[in-house]
Each structure stands twice: as structure tokens, then as C-alpha cells.
């Protein structure tokens, strides 16, 4: 079984994010790391291949600047190899353009299953996986909390507003994995050392046969026209509990007529 996992490399979410005032794009100058949302897809892929008794987990990622830091983390977890699409023309690419690029890279890899996180931690559009499936013209199941591959089909527990649905479809298929549904493994020291030698194939747009005008700012066909600071909520009264804070809460509930 061959599983391809889409991974995004993002600025460290622990650092304050910032928009570049000249372009209004998210600043990505610092080192990029593996998006935590995607670590669940990587872990899920590794578990599926292990339970199938063999197979390969490959990664695919896109970045304008050749970043590989996040890919190395996922390779250290146990993925075999990676394809990185990197091209200066990708700056400003939107969700649809990203999906076209990733789909073109994935179609060269002929996977049985494509996994992705439901949404990234920085852009969180939550649309790229389904768009990739659209561009590849394969079935897809989003918001998975559990995945089983049996023969030529994939069975998924798909999270819904009310609970979950059982959904199945034939492979090849794309499944997006909800954060938190598996426990991503920590790379071992051995894994980290091995990851340094694992192959990362770097491709540009021409290698994928993609016209650079269909991606980047031109391809996005949308423009940030304004950025404003949001009105901040003011903090109210803060008290230290010395055994009777619940009385203060009761009083507040009374004022709100909740009780």
C-alpha cells in the first residue's frame, strides 16, 4: 500500500504571527516547522501501513522558498521520502492554486490513499484536501476520526455536527484526518539521524507542467484591500478565591438573571 501524506510547513504558531505590510501575506521569514495538524495525518499513515503489514508513506509539500525543516520532522517520524514543490512564482498562492499544485505532484506518485490534515493551523481554510481530491477526480472523505483500509476500499468514521457517520469508498481516495484522533509519535534519535539521508525530491512548476500564471497572486484572483485591528474585549473584575468565590459567581448569575 502506498500512502501519500500532504504536509504543510508553517511558521511556529508559538511566535506571534504578522502580515507583511507591503503584500499583506503572512510573514514566513523564520524557520518553518511541521504543522501539528499534519502530524496526525503522518501518524495515521504510518499506522495504516504498519497494520497492512507493509507499504510506503511518502510526503508531499509546497513552499515558495525550498523549506524542508517540517518535512525532516515527518521523515524522522518514519515516512520514506518526500516531494517538495518549490517555486518563487508560488508566493501568494491561494487554496485552489495550492490544491492544483499538490494534485499534480501526487498524480506522479500513484498512491492508493492520500491523507491530509482537515485544516492547517495558520490558514485553516479547510478546503485544500477536498480540492486536491477534486483536481485528481477521486472520491474523498473529510473529517475522519478513524480509518480502515480493506482490500480496495477505505472505511472511515467521519465526524459530524451531531456525532459521526460511517462512510466508505473505493481506493484510490483522499481522506482528511481530524486533529487529535491519533497520538503522533515523537521522532527517535535514530529516526532523526536517518531522516537527514532520506530523499527529498524538489520540483518546480515547469517540472509539473503548471503555468505560473495559474498560481501565485494572479491565480488567486482575490486581493486584500484592508487590514484592521479588531476591537479587543476588555477584561473585567478578577478576584482571588479565598473560599467564597462561588458566592461572587452566584451574585453575577443573579445580575444576568441566569438564576
Amino acid at each position, binding site marked *: 500500500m502506498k500512502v501519500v501524506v500532504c504536509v504543510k510547513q508553517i511558521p511556529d504558531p508559538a511566535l506571534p504571527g504578522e502580515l507583511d505590510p507591503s503584500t499583506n501575506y503572512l510573514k514566513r521569514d523564520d524557520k518553518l516547522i511541521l504543522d501539528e495538524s499534519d502530524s496526525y495525518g503522518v501518524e495515521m499513515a504510518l499506522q495504516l501501513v504498519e497494520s497492512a503489514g507493509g507499504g510506503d508513506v511518502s510526503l508531499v509539500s509546497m513552499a515558495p522558498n525550498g523549506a524542508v525543516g517540517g518535512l525532516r520532522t515527518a521523515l524522522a517520524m518514519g515516512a520514506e521520502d518526500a516531494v517538495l514543490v518549490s517555486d518563487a512564482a508560488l508566493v501568494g498562492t491561494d487554496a485552489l492554486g495550492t490544491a492544483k499544485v499538490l494534485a499534480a505532484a501526487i498524480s506522479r506518485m500513484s498512491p492508493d490513499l492520500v491523507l491530509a490534515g482537515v485544516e492547517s493551523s495558520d490558514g485553516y481554510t479547510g*478546503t485544500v484536501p477536498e480540492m486536491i481530491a477534486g483536481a485528481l477526480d*477521486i472520491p474523498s472523505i473529510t473529517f475522519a476520526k478513524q480509518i480502515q483500509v480493506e482490500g480496495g476500499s477505505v472505511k472511515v468514521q467521519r465526524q459530524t455536527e451531531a456525532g459521526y457517520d460511517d462512510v466508505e469508498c473505493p481506493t484510490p481516495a483522499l481522506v482528511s484526518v481530524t486533529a487529535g484522533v491519533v497520538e503522533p509519535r515523537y521522532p527517535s534519535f535514530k529516526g532523526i539521524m536517518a531522516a537527514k539521508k532520506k530523499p527529498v525530491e524538489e520540483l518546480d512548476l515547469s517540472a509539473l507542467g503548471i503555468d505560473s500564471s495559474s498560481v501565485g497572486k494572479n491565480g488567486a484572483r482575490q486581493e486584500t484591500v484592508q487590514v484592521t485591528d479588531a476591537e479587543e474585549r476588555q477584561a473585567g473584575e*478578577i478576584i482571588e478565591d479565598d473560599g467564597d468565590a*462561588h458566592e461572587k459567581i452566584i451574585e453575577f448569575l443573579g445580575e444576568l438573571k441566569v438564576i
Partner: protein
Amino acid sequence: MSIETILVFAEGDETGPSGLTLELMTAARSLAANVETFVAGDGAAMAEQLGAHGASKVFSTGALEGKLMGVHAAAALQAHVEATNPDAIFFGQTPDGRDTAARLAVRIDQPVVTNNVGASVEDGVLVVEEPVFGGTQNVFTAFRNDGPALALFRPKSFEAEPNGGGAAEVVGVEAVDPGVAGSAVVTGRHAEERSGPKLDEAEVVISGGRGLGQPEAYSMIDELAGLLGAASGASRAIVDAGWVPYAKQVGQTGKVVKPNLYVACGISGATQHLVGMKGSKNIIAINKDPEAPIFGVADLGIVGDVHKVVPALIEALKSR
């Protein structure tokens, strides 16, 4: 160019359209003279309420019979959109809304802008507003494409308000076979058991987080919620840890709530969580760390141990 017709992708069930769908109707009505709706399913059950909220028409594919919605909805929508050329299509930021918009975007090669909380028309072009960096800044995006503007909106961004219209005309549309891409089928449905009001509709929400220490401690959140007629919610941390089901998650991933009162128990207030609850009218936070970001948005902040404050509160409420 101007905005004349907005098509709202309506979701709901046999009881009628979802609250979010009706919120989208308010936004669409404020921007366009003509608002039409599209239902990937049985539109007849929704015609009365959609009409009362300003829809002139309900285009309906009829029941999907167990097929996973997104790709089928998008295939039928493509044919409809190419025939009718709406200026914009509004979707709710839901699993099926995202799937459908994403598939449609590929089929008609038009961009989608997600996570919006506001919309306006400027110089005849749709401009949508999206909060970024945990809601500290707002980004306004103008559509520059030659085709319908596809926009997804978060729940609770607009107030649902009927405008007194009669039932909308239901118009059947042809289903379009998306081929093998449409082969995902739903074989079973499971609803989490819930007592009390729905999380995203409740007047009062009581949520628990990592500060509860262990999964068993969540029972006091449920007990407090029961006493106040509230819904119980959770931070992503304890959903990820498997203490409570995903259906209870409040936050950026999860549900957006705007109740009259939100009580955060043992929740530090990560950006991910704040995005989902800081629109609440009143907020009480109980946390032992005085530096917790949750206190920055609380109207009443209690620096203390949830294991002492919450049981004392429960006792006090019971003895009233």
C-alpha cells in the same frame, strides 16, 4: 458589474434549514436584491422558512440517498451556476459546506474565500471580512475573479431575521453523476447522546479544559450545566485527549458559540479556544494561573482551583 443575485447553499434537516443557513440569508439579503437558495437534498421541507427569510426560490436536487454530499452537491451546483450565473454563492463553514465549495471551486475554476464573518459590496465587488491571528486583526478580501464569488461564513456572524416573505418556490434541478469521485457512501449515522440544549444554541455554556486534571472531573461540568439549563462544552485539549467527544469542542476547529453567559473552567484560553467563545455576551473564567489569557476576556475572573470553586458553586445552587 454589481451584485444582483446571491445563491445561498442551504443546509438543514427534515425540521427545516439550519440556524447558520438563516444567518446567511440575512447577509445575502442586505447585499443583493434577489436571494435564491440551493439545497442538496429535499428542498420542500425548507421552502417555508427560507421564503420567510427572503428566498425567492429553492433549487433542490431531491434526496441524496446516502451519498456523501459534497461532490454530488458540487456537480449539480456547477450545472445550475453555469445556467443561472449568480454573482456570489454563500456557504456556511460546515463540513458539507466546505466540501461542496471546494469541489465546486475546482469544477468551475473559481477561488473560494473561507472563515468570513462579514460581507459588503464595494464598487460592485463582493468584499469579505476574515479575522486572523485569533481575532486580533481583520483582513478584508475583494474578489477579482471573472465568475461567481464563492464565500464561506462562520456561524454566528449575522443575526437570522425573517423578513415576512411567503414560502419560496421549489424548483427541481437535475442530479449530475460525478462518476467514481462520487462513490463515497454513508453506511451508518451515530448521534452523540445529549441532554439539555444544543451547544451552539444554548443561552448558557459551561466548558471544561485541561485544568480539570482528569477525565472523571468533567462530570462536574455536566452537573453544573444541568443545574443552569446550560450546554456543556470543552477545549480542544481535552477533546484531543479523548475525555469528551468532538461534538463538545468549542473553538476555531469545533463550534463557535455566542451565548449570554460562557463559563470557562480550567481553560487557559489558547487562541484556538478564544476564537470560538469570545463573542459571548458575558464570560466567567475559573483558572488557577493568574496569567492565563482567558482572564483577558473574562467579565468575572476567579483565580482559584476549579476542584474547589465548581463543587462549592454546585452546592450553593442546589441549596437555593
